[in-house]
């Protein structure tokens, strides 16, 4: 059923529109359909994006622009040790996220996919953490990792005779722990996407492989993984983009500590803006730097993807 707008434009007697060439008319209809979306995007995405770039080039008084300072905000940020640390930490988050967070959903999808009984239950159970509000989930983990007498993990460890540990006070542990909490929350949703991908695989391939004597490992290796490779690479780049913007997890769990060991670029941006100095110029500069890095990742992904398609 066509929309009233399209029907109206298709009627020849509608004045000037009716006199247009069919191709032009069709283009006009397309633009009209897209217009609300474009307006919303312009207002909520592009305008703030451009404003951020503009703000990063100014000295500011909260969100007011006071004086054009060129790239001074960027130069001052690049000089600061906290920025270097936040940049290194953010790449560390990405590394741990790929190590922990990328493989777990695939593993979950494969295991649930191979499950014969209670598949629906496991699918729901895997998704449940995703329903929890983000902050609530992190506060829950805070109680788990607490080194005080009420810390759940420490209570369990003490039952095993292991000494109490301050997990969130250890600089080398804090990023993997934060990634673990983020993975716990998000892995179920990603696993569902993989499961959808897996359901598209022709079952005859598995039957043929089974008849040829292929076991479960070989079936996964030669049929399942190649089939979800394309999906996996898309989710990989999305995961990198997502983890690069990690903020509220370290903000709630560790506040960037100990000694900035879990400070991410987004958290640094938040600190400049709301951490007591209201330095929106530098905060915007950090935001632009994050965008540039992510654009770089996306471009890299596009190149790799294009080459892969050409090769195939």
């Amino acid at each position, binding site marked *: 059923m066509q929309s009233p707008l399209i029907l109206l434009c298709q009627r020849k007697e509608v004045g000037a529109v009716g006199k247009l060439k069919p191709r032009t008319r069709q283009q006009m209809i397309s633009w009209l359909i897209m217009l609300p979306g474009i307006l919303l995007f312009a207002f909520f995405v592009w305008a703030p994006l451009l404003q951020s770039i503009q703000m990063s080039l100014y000295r500011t*008084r*909260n*969100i*007011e622009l006071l004086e054009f300072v060129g790239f001074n905000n960027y130069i*001052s940020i690049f*000089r*600061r*040790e*906290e920025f270097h640390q936040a940049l290194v930490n953010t790449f560390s988050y990405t590394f741990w996220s790929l190590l922990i967070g990328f493989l777990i959903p695939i593993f979950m999808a494969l295991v649930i996919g191979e499950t014969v009984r209670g598949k629906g239950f496991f699918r729901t159970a895997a998704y449940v953490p995703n329903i929890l509000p983000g902050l609530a989930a992190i506060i829950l983990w*805070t109680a788990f990792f*607490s*080194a*005080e*007498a009420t*810390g759940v993990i420490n209570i369990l460890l003490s039952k095993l005779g292991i000494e*109490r540990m*301050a997990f*969130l*006070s*250890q*600089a080398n542990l804090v990023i993997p722990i934060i990634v673990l909490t983020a993975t716990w929350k998000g892995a179920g949703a990603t696993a569902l996407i993989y499961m959808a991908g897996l359901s598209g695989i022709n079952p005859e391939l598995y039957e043929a492989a089974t008849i040829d004597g292929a076991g479960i490992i070989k079936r996964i290796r030669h049929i399942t993984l190649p089939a979800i490779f394309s999906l996996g690479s898309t989710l990989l780049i999305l995961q990198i983009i997502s983890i690069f913007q990690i903020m509220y997890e370290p903000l709630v*769990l*560790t*506040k960037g*500590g*100990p*000694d*900035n060991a879990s400070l991410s670029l987004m958290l640094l941006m*938040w*600190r400049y*803006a*709301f*951490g*007591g*100095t*209201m330095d929106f110029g530098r905060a915007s500069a950090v935001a632009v730097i994050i965008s540039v890095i992510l654009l770089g990742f996306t471009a890299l992904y596009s190149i790799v993807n294009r080459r892969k398609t050409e090769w195939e």
Partner: protein
Amino acid sequence: MKKRIRFLAILASLCILLTAYTPAVMGSSASAASSELEGISAEVVDADLTCTITLGNWPPDTAPAAELALFEGYRAIMQLQYPNVTVVPAYFSYTLSNYLPMARGGTAPTVFQPPFTDPQLLINQNLVADVTDALEQFGILEKFSPSFVELLGDENGRIYGLPRDGYVLGMHININLFEQAGLMTDDGLPMIPKTLQELAEYGQIIREKTGKAGLVFPASETFGGWLYTNIAWNYGAVGENALQYQDADGRWMANFTSEPAVAAMEYLRSLRWDYDILNADATTTDWASAHSFLGTGEAAMNFAADDSVAEPTAGGGLAVDKFALIPFPAGPGGAYALTGGTCFMFAPDTTHDQAVATLGFLRIIGMLPFASDDIVAGMRAGAAARRERGVPVLPPIPAWNDADFIAVQREIAEEYANVDMRLYQDFFDSLTDGSVALKGEEPVFAQQLYRELTSVIQRLITREDADVLRALSQAQERFQEYLDDELNNR
């Protein structure tokens, strides 16, 4: 089946009993505070004033009944005194990050309560309203002490707020843990640490005897650095050894590597690695959870002030007779205590009428410096509500330059006293007998300074091999860069 019906019947009866009983209890607890409100005049003050005011820090629905009833009573009186002023409660509790978007978006409450660390930042950022004329109309300006004019005003002498109350940093004590550790005098009072060295030693005894933390130390965000500054002053980081100073050219210089500053940081380090008295998760502990640790008996001591005695008691469940407030322990370089406070400030779009109406409300709740019947009744109602909630009712730290008003405040505190004042005597004596020198916060970019110092503390209490001098030198370099960027090179 019969059993199930019987169980349901018992459950239903219990529910009915509880619902019938609860309002009665609440009603009785609310009554004392509400009866004090009867002393406030119900006569019309200004019938022509027409506006709507939104009042931040209004108690939420989950607040104790006594407090809710008190504020509803205040609102009813406001309605009588200013019939055309609409009061809108706002459950807004100020933090810089939640205030900024509201102020810029025009949704900030008419009045809110920031700590003394923020007024100058808010004034410089154009995020608060000039209320000089309204303050003048109420005759309050002459009661401002000069330091408050400096704190709440700009370079043109315009004023943007008024003080609510002051505080002096001291130490909260959980007496239960002192008792368990055997740290009690023959008079049944806790053996309070008078020096930082004693604090470490007593904390160690408490750790050994009870297994609980001797000291809860909030070392997250900026809190650790904030507390460290007071310890550093007591080690002698003042005057020529101050943590920041202006050189002959007027440039601001960071100075974290003086002998007293290093010694103070060594002391903090020793609390973790030598005495082992700190709570286990100090790097993630914030101000609120520190109070909670003390209130729930997970820690015996907490550096905190007289304005937060409600948190470990009414908030954390510690009985008022098991709580003490003592002076900040002295160090080898002196005995200083950080002083600060909380103020009332106004949203940037506040009109003159709104400012006048809000001051009218502040008069009703006893926050203006006059000893009139109305204000005294408002103050009494506040004290009665605190007593009913199980909050220690203490003499306030004066925020106004008015001897009569201060005397009335003290009288009311004595009248409603619910504590053994011996548990507070040293603290209040130290404010007047000169045994502790009161000192304001570090002068420029205090929050950034605290953040840098907190990072140092976090490194030292999580890595036994960390070098104190090196960590402080690096922090000094970072803070100096910040000072150069923001002040010296502008």
